[in-house]
């Protein structure tokens, strides 16, 4: 596969922004219909209350919190991976970073919705915010749910800034290339008067480096804190010291898979084959197989410790997963997260292979989140209280809808901003000595 086929790099990378083809409208329309279905389900739930969900004693967290954990995990696709690649100076990152960073922002926005939906009275969500209110109520800072509030908002704000900073020069490019006064005006506003002086480039690069260093521990903390929502409770198979790193590893794992899928769709739909090349899928495939092994290691350590301890309460949950009613899901998870991706990616990391492996991983990791939450809740310590759980159509719609919402958000983003950082890509070419001419029309040579 040849890289960036000659011609005008600016034109190729800005084309999705400056021209809108019918596939874009069809995609947004279909996703919009699904999303409207989810809105309808949400309205139905608001009217009738949370009783329309399948949750009942003792399973009070189910699909909703599964979705929360899953989407927060997916958010690790972007900022964290992008920051690590920047800090380590991985040059192949250049066409990948913005695709990834956008995933983070949208996944976080979606993930953060679920605790609010779960409140039952979402219009009272502001009670989570620490402010001196007249009721004398304060958030309980000892609660991991309050930690979530701080962690997710810090990560969301940091990720938006981390996405925005490298976008500024491209916004200036769009300002100068766009037609239409209104459009130019919006880009001019967003580009903050960027002129491309040496000073501005120097400060931008410094700020991005600083942000990359700060954002890595924040990203790690976010999913660690999400894991503590569970680990701080003295529940069977939740009260575990490895839950923090286990969740972080799982988040990066599912995040890379989501990134591969997003890149595969983008390169096909927007004809960016010369930019998102097999080498990127190969490298991300290597990361994916590494994370698959790490995930298996953590899972094995967790389950072996439980089995070896042989405590009745823990074993009830353990057996329900491995041989009981949740066994089909459990073994699907093992297949999706380990048995399918590892053999595929160990030998072949083509685009097709990495996409197949990524689909398996995303499905497997969604099931993993479900299996962490529901079997433990349905098997409390006192066995008289054991129960089962099955979702209603409302929960299913509220699970499918956010995927459609994600597609809409991503499609709109691609429509408004270049999904590949133009300046970073061109700088990468020049640093490799492939493109001595700075100009946009400089042809990138073939590999």
């Amino acid at each position, binding site marked *: 596969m040849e890289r960036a086929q000659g011609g005008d790099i600016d034109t190729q990378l800005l084309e999705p922004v400056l021209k809108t083809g019918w596939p874009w409208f069809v995609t947004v329309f279909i996703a919009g219909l699904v999303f409207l279905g989810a809105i309808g389900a949400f309205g139905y739930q608001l009217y009738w209350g949370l009783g329309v969900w399948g949750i009942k004693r003792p399973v009070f967290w189910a699909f909703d919190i599964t979705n929360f954990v899953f989407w927060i995990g997916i958010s690790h696709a972007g900022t964290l991976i992008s920051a690590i690649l920047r800090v380590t100076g991985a040059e192949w990152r250049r066409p990948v970073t913005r695709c990834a960073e956008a995933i983070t922002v949208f996944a976080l926005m979606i993930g953060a919705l679920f605790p609010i939906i779960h409140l039952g009275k979402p219009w009272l969500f502001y009670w989570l915010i620490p402010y001196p209110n007249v009721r004398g109520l304060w958030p309980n800072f000892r609660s991991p749910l309050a930690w979530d509030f*701080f962690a997710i908002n810090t990560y969301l*704000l940091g990720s938006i800034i981390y996405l925005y900073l490298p976008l500024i020069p491209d916004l200036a490019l769009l300002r100068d290339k766009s037609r239409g006064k209104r459009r130019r005006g919006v880009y001019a506003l967003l580009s903050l008067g960027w002129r491309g002086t040496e000073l501005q480039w120097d400060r931008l690069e410094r700020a991005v480096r600083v942000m990359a260093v700060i954002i890595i521990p924040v990203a790690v903390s976010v999913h660690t804190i999400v894991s503590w929502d569970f680990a701080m409770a003295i529940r069977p198979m939740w009260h575990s010291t490895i839950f923090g790193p286990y969740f972080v590893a799982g988040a990066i794992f599912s995040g890379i898979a989501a990134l591969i899928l997003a890149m595969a769709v983008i390169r096909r739909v927007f004809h960016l084959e010369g930019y998102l090349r097999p080498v990127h899928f190969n490298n991300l495939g290597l990361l994916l197989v590494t994370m698959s092994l790490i995930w298996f290691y953590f899972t094995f350590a967790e389950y072996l410790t439980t089995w070896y301890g042989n405590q009745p309460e823990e074993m009830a949950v353990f057996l329900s997963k491995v041989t009981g009613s949740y066994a089909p899901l459990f073994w699907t998870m093992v297949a999706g997260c380990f048995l399918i991706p590892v053999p595929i990616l160990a030998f072949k990391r083509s685009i097709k292979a990495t996409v197949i492996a990524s689909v398996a991983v995303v499905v497997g990791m969604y099931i993993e989140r479900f299996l962490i939450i529901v079997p433990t809740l349905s098997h409390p310590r006192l066995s008289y209280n054991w129960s089962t759980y099955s979702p209603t159509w409302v929960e299913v719609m509220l699970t499918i809808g956010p995927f459609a919402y994600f597609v809409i958000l991503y499609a709109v983003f691609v429509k408004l901003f270049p999904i590949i950082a133009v300046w970073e890509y061109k700088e990468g070419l020049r640093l490799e000595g492939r493109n001595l001419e700075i100009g946009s029309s400089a042809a990138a040579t073939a590999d």
Partner: protein
Amino acid sequence: MSKTEKNPESIGTRLKTAEEATRAVEELLRQGVPRDCIEVQSSEPIHFSGAAAASHKKSWIWLFGIAGGIVGALAAVLLTVWTSRRVNLVTGGMPIASPWPLGVIVFEMTALGAILFSVVRMIFEARLGRRRSDDDEAALAEGDIVVRRV
């Protein structure tokens, strides 16, 4: 090489490659123009080396990041300890402001402070958010490099 006609006060020379830009900067330096008075604009970062290397003022972005972290941490301590003490919870002798959970919030707000201060400082140092009057935006959009004496 062609000179801009719109703004004769500042000599803006449009160039195609980094090498040409380097030669132009070196030529200006040979003519006795201080490096601080030479401005190079481009659509992607160019890192000149040797005599042509830019001499920017020292950046304080890192330091502001650290300062922001300290401010964020202090704000978190104030928020958590003050609000915890304000509610007269019965804790059975346990500390009302427990350091471990509050430490989590302090960590997050430290990062938040560092991020915000760094970005604000970057915007200030890069002189962003100011009204621009640039005649060379079309040239930059086409990928030219503009070297001018300011």
